[in-house]
C-alpha cells in the first residue's frame, strides 16, 4: 500500500469523522463563544485536510488556499470576540 492510498483509505475518513464531531458542538454549543471556538477548530481541521489532500492528489497547489484559510480563521476569531465584548460593555 503506497502512502497516497494509506492517506485516502485511513487518514481522510478519520479527519472527516472529527469534522462531524466538531459540527455537533457547533450546532449544540450552549453559548456563542462555544460556536466561535468550534468554527475556529473547523477551519484549522480544514487546513489539515488540505494538507492530506495534497499528498493524495500529488500536486501542492492547494497549500495557498490553506494559507488564506489560516488568515481568515484568525481574522474571524478576533472580529467576533471584539464585537462580543463590545456588546457587553456599557458607556
Amino acid at each position: 500500500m503506497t502512502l497516497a492510498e494509506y492517506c485516502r483509505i485511513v487518514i481522510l475518513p478519520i479527519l472527516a469523522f472529527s469534522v462531524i464531531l466538531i459540527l455537533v458542538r457547533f450546532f449544540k454549543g450552549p453559548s456563542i463563544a462555544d460556536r466561535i471556538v468550534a468554527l475556529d477548530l473547523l477551519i484549522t481541521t480544514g487546513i489539515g485536510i488540505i494538507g492530506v489532500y495534497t499528498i493524495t492528489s500529488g500536486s501542492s497547489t492547494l497549500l495557498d488556499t490553506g494559507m488564506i484559510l489560516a488568515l481568515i480563521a484568525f481574522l474571524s476569531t478576533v472580529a467576533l470576540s471584539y464585537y462580543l465584548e463590545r456588546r457587553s460593555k456599557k458607556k
Partner: protein
Amino acid sequence: MNIFIGIVITLGTLFVLLAAVGLIRMPDTYLRISVNTKAATLGVGLLLGGVAFYFYDLSTTSRTFVIVLFLFLTAPVGAHLIGRASYFIGNKLWDQSKMDDLRGKYQRNSHVLKSEIDDTPEDNIDHTKM
C-alpha cells in the same frame, strides 16, 4: 522514508481526532478553548510537516512553514481574546473547578482589570454569586 511520513501523519490525525473528542466531552467553555489551542495546532503542525517531507522541495516546504508559523503565532492570541470575551458575557466555570483567579477583579461596565478586589462589589464580575 514513506514509513516515517506515515507515522508523522498518523500522529497528527490522532491529535486532530482527540481535539474533536475533547471539544465534545469537555464540560466548560474555557476547557474547550484550551483543547482547541493546544491539540489542533500540534496536529496540523505534524500533518503539514509530513507534507513537507513528502514533497521535499523548496516551494512546498516554505509554504507549509509559513502556515505552521502563522498558526503557532495566532492560536494563543485568538484563545486569549475569545476567553476574555467569554468571561465578560457571563459564561460560568465548571461547577467542580477549584479556583478562579479573576474572581471579582474585572469591572463589569468599564472592562478594567484591577489587581485586587476593591470595595465596589456590585461592579465586579463574580461568577460564583450569579
